[in-house]
């Protein structure tokens, strides 16, 4: 396996991981007002592929945030208890948006690496042309 295909494979794994992260972030954001929703977090880990000798990135199991759910006072809400409160979600939009921006930045960096490896290998093939 040439170094370029290694680089392309690793960048593709990075792109996939960041896209998965962004998907879970958008799930969190769209469920920000769902009562009882706990935000999902995705861990990243390095997966060393001994066959090709590269450290790809892999998304681990999705876990739920154990943070406290927001208590909202609204006695008219169908889910409100006798004190008039019901439990909302524990999504903090600010955190999700900051995380989404970071995911985008990392995605772009991986895309740039992919594009560069592609350019380098096509430059190599140009040698065959006269």
């Amino acid at each position, binding site marked *: *396996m*040439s*170094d*370029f295909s*290694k*680089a*392309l494979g*690793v*960048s593709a*794994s*990075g792109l996939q*991981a*960041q896209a998965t*992260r962004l998907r879970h972030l958008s799930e969190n954001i769209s469920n920000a007002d769902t009562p009882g929703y706990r935000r999902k977090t995705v*861990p*990243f*880990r*390095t997966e060393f592929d001994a066959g090709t*000798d*590269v*450290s*790809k*990135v892999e998304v681990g199991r999705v876990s739920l945030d154990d943070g406290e759910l927001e208590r909202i006072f609204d006695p008219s809400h169908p889910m409100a208890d006798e004190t008039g409160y019901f439990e909302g979600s524990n999504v903090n939009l600010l955190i999700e948006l900051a995380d989404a921006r*970071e995911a985008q*930045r*990392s995605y772009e*960096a*991986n895309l*740039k*690496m*992919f594009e*560069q*490896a592609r*350019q*380098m290998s096509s*430059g*190599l093939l*140009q*040698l065959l042309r006269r």
Partner: protein
Amino acid sequence: MFQNLTVFKTAYAMAVHAGQRQAIIAQNVANADTPGFVSRDLPSFQEIYSSRMGDQTMLRATRVGHVNGSPTSSIDGLAQEDRSFAAPDGNTVSLETEMVRATDAKRQHERSLAIYKSAMNVLRSSLGRQ
């Protein structure tokens, strides 16, 4: 006479080095958000090349595997860990540094290909084909 041209071997070794460096940088960028990942980098081509210059009878190569071994063997022997930048989660990848390194690798690759091409043109002219 035309079987062992040093300029081709040097340009080849330089291009291989650039490709390997690109692969390592792609791994760093893909793992930019993996907790505990340590960034790695290859020493510069000039460093490796000059350290082998002393032995003139040996074919110059960025590592032993280039000449006699298979060109796909491990590059882990030469890669050095870079811990100059550390995030709280133990990740030492700095995207900005990686971008600079990637640009370096690309320029080195283009330079080596340009040298290779120009030497080819010299050979072609000597054969009388333009």
